C-alpha cells in the first residue's frame, strides 16, 4: 500500500509535466525536449523567489514568468521555423534546452537548492504513512489536472485548442484564432512544466539536472499514453509512477527507471499508438 501511495505521488507529478508536454505535442506537432528545462527553470525561480517573498507569491510569479518565457520562445524561436517541419522544431527545442540549461548554471550556480518548506512528519493511516505536505502535493497535482481537463472540455478556449489539435488548417478556416490559441498553448504548457518542476523540487531537491533527469520519463509517459490524448497521458503517468515505485517490492530500487523503459519498449512493440490512444478506439468502434 505504501508503494502505491508513493507511486501515486510520483505519477501525479509526472502527469502534470506530461500533460503540458502532450498539449504542445498535439497542437504544435513536435517533441518539445526543452520542456524539462522549463521544469527546472520554474523550480529554480520558485526556490529563489519563495525564499524572498514567501511561498504563494513566489510560486505564482515563477509560474507566470515561465509561462511568459514559453510564449516568447514559441513566438520568437519556434513560429519562424514551423514551416520547415517537425524535425527542425525538434532540434530547435534541443538547442533551446541546452541554452536554458547553461543559463540556469550561469545564473543560479550548480549547488543543490532546497525549498524552505517542510512537508511535515508522516501520519500513520493504517498500512500507509502520508505526510501533510505529500497530501498537499497530491491535491495540487489533482487540481491542476482537473483544471486542465475542465479548460479543455468545458470552455470555448478548450474547444479552440482541441480544434487546432485536430486540424490546424481547418480550424483556421473556421475562424479559430490559431496564433492566439498557439500562444495560450505555449503559456499553458510552460506553466504546467513550471508547476511540475516546483512540486518535484519541494519533494526532493532543485538541481540543474532536474530537467534532464525528468524529460525521458515525460517522453515515456507521453508515448505510453498516446500523444494524441491528454487523459490517456495522465493515466499513463499514474500507471508509470505506480509501477516504478511498486517495482521496489520485487526488484532492487536502482532498477526502477529501467522498469519504466521496459514498459515503454513493450508498448511500442505491441501497441505503438499508445495504451490509451483515442484514434485506436475510434478505429475499433468504426
Amino acid at each position, binding site marked *: 500500500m*505504501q508503494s502505491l501511495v508513493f507511486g501515486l505521488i510520483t505519477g501525479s507529478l509526472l502527469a502534470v509535466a506530461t500533460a503540458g508536454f502532450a498539449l504542445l505535442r498535439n497542437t504544435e506537432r513536435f517533441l518539445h525536449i526543452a520542456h524539462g528545462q522549463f521544469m527546472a527553470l520554474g523550480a529554480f525561480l520558485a526556490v529563489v523567489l519563495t525564499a524572498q517573498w514567501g511561498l504563494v507569491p513566489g510560486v505564482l510569479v515563477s509560474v507566470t514568468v515561465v509561462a511568459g518565457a514559453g510564449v516568447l520562445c514559441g513566438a520568437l524561436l519556434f513560429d519562424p521555423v514551423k514551416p520547415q517541419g517537425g524535425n527542425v522544431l525538434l532540434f530547435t527545442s534541443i538547442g533551446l534546452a541546452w541554452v536554458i540549461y547553461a543559463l540556469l548554471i550561469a545564473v543560479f550556480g550548480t*549547488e*543543490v537548492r532546497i525549498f524552505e518548506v517542510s512537508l511535515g512528519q*508522516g501520519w500513520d493511516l493504517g498500512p500507509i504513512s502520508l505526510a501533510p505536505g505529500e497530501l498537499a502535493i497530491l491535491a495540487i497535482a489533482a487540481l491542476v489536472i482537473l483544471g486542465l481537463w475542465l479548460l479543455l472540455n468545458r470552455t470555448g478556449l478548450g474547444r479552440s485548442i482541441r480544434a487546432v489539435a485536430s486540424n490546424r488548417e481547418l480550424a483556421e478556416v473556421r475562424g479559430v484564432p490559431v496564433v492566439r490559441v498557439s500562444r495560450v498553448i505555449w503559456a499553458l504548457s510552460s506553466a504546467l512544466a513550471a508547476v511540475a518542476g516546483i512540486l518535484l523540487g519541494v519533494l526532493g*531537491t532543485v*538541481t540543474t539536472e532536474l530537467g534532464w533527469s525528468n524529460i525521458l520519463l515525460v517522453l515515456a509517459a507521453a508515448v505510453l499514453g498516446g500523444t494524441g490524448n491528454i487523459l490517456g497521458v495522465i493515466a499513463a503517468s499514474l500507471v508509470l509512477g505506480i509501477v516504478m515505485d511498486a517495482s521496489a517490492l520485487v526488484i532492487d*530500487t*536502482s532498477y*526502477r527507471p529501467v522498469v519504466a523503459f521496459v514498459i515503454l519498449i513493450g508498448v511500442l512493440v505491441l501497441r505503438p499508438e499508445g495504451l490509451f490512444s483515442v484514434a485506436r478506439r475510434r478505429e475499433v468502434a468504426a
Partner: protein
Amino acid sequence: MTRRRGSVIPLLLSSLVVAACAEPGGPSAADSGGASDDGGDIVFGQLLGITGDYASFSPPAIEAAQIAVDEINEAGGVLGREVTLATEDNRSTVDGAIAGYQKLVSVDGAQVLGSLESDGIVALYDTITEQQLPTICSSCGTTFLDDKGGEYFFRVTASDSDAGLIAAQLARDAGYKNMSMIVQNTEGASGPAEVAEAAFSGIEGNEVNTVTIEPGRSSYAAEVDQALSTNPDVIYVGAGIEAGLPILREIHRRGYDVPIIVSPDLILPETTTVPNADNLVAALGAFDVDSPTYESYAERFQERTGEEPSPGLYDANNYDQYILFALAMQAAGTTDGSEVASKIIDVASAPGTKVYSYAEGLEALENGEEINFEGASSSLDMNENGNLVSPQLSILRIVNGEWAPTESVAIDSSLRPSA
C-alpha cells in the same frame, strides 16, 4: 567521491576518443607525461567537478591549489620556471573526466594532474599509466587505488576502506546490531559502503540491509521505505548531496529517529539544515591543525576566502598535492613524468629532513638533502602503493549548526574483512 552513473558504452567510446585523440598531439609513453623541458611555464593540471554533484567541493579546492602555486612561484618556481595552474571541469561525471583530461593534456599541456575524484581515477587509470602522467588525488577514496597506486597514482586522503571501517566501528561501538544502508550507485559512495557492510555484518549477530539507489530521482520514498522495513537501529547513508538531502528528509518524514551515519560526501553545510541534523554522524580524514604547514596554509586560505579550511571539503589536501608535485619535480631535476612520479613518495615520506613549506623543501633539496614534506592535511607519509600510512580521522557531528570534529578515532584493524 565520484559516480558510476552511465553505461559502459559511453565510457568505452570516450576512452577510444581519448586514445585516438591523444596520439597525434598529446603525450605518449615516449613523451612521458606530456612534459617538455622547453623552458616555458610548467603547467599543473587540476581536473575536478566544478559542476554537478561535486560542485560544492571545487571553489575551496581551486583556491587551495592557487595558494600552493603562488607559494611555489614566490619561492622561485620549479627548476627556475614559473608554474601555472590549468583547471578543467569534469562535470562530476566519468565522461566529463575523460573529456576534461583530454583538454588538460592536449590543449593545456598539463605535466601533472591533481584533484580528480574516484570515478575519473578508475576510468582514466590505464590512459594515465600509459601516458606516465604523475597524478595525485586529494579526495578520491576509491579502494581501487589500495593496491594499484604507487607508480603514477598517489593520494593524500584516506582510502574508502578506512572510511568504511570507521562507519562499521562507530556502529559496533555504540552497540547497534541492525543496520540499514542506503547507498548511491557510484564509485565514491559504494566503495566505503561495501567495506562497512562487510565489516559490520562480519560481527556475530549483526544484520545489514542494503538498498542501492540511482541518483537523479525526484523522490527516494520507495528506497527509504525499503531501508526502514527491517526496523534498523542505525542507518548508513552513502550518497552525493543531490540524493542525500531528500533521503535524509524522507527518513525524518517517515518518523524514524535513529542515528544516521553519513558518508563524507554529505559533510556539507546543506546537511546541517535537515530536520534530523542532530542524528547525523560522520567520519572523515582530519587536518593536522598543529602542523606549521597547516597554520601557514590556513592563514592564507582564510585571507583569500574568508573561511576556515574544512576537512570535509579537502582544501588542504588540494594544497598539499601541488606542493608535493613541485618538490618531486625539483628532486627529479626534470619535468619528465616517470622521473617526477618516482620522487613523490620520497619527498612525502620519511626518511629525510622534515620541511613545512615549498621554500624549505627547495632549500633542502638544493643542499643535497633528502626531504620529508609534512603537509597541511597530514604528515603525507605514503606506503609503496602511494596511500597514506596514517591518515588523520575524526568523528564529526553537527554542533551549533555546523559540522564539527568531536573526537579522534583510530581504526580497529580487526574489523578489516581480510583480517
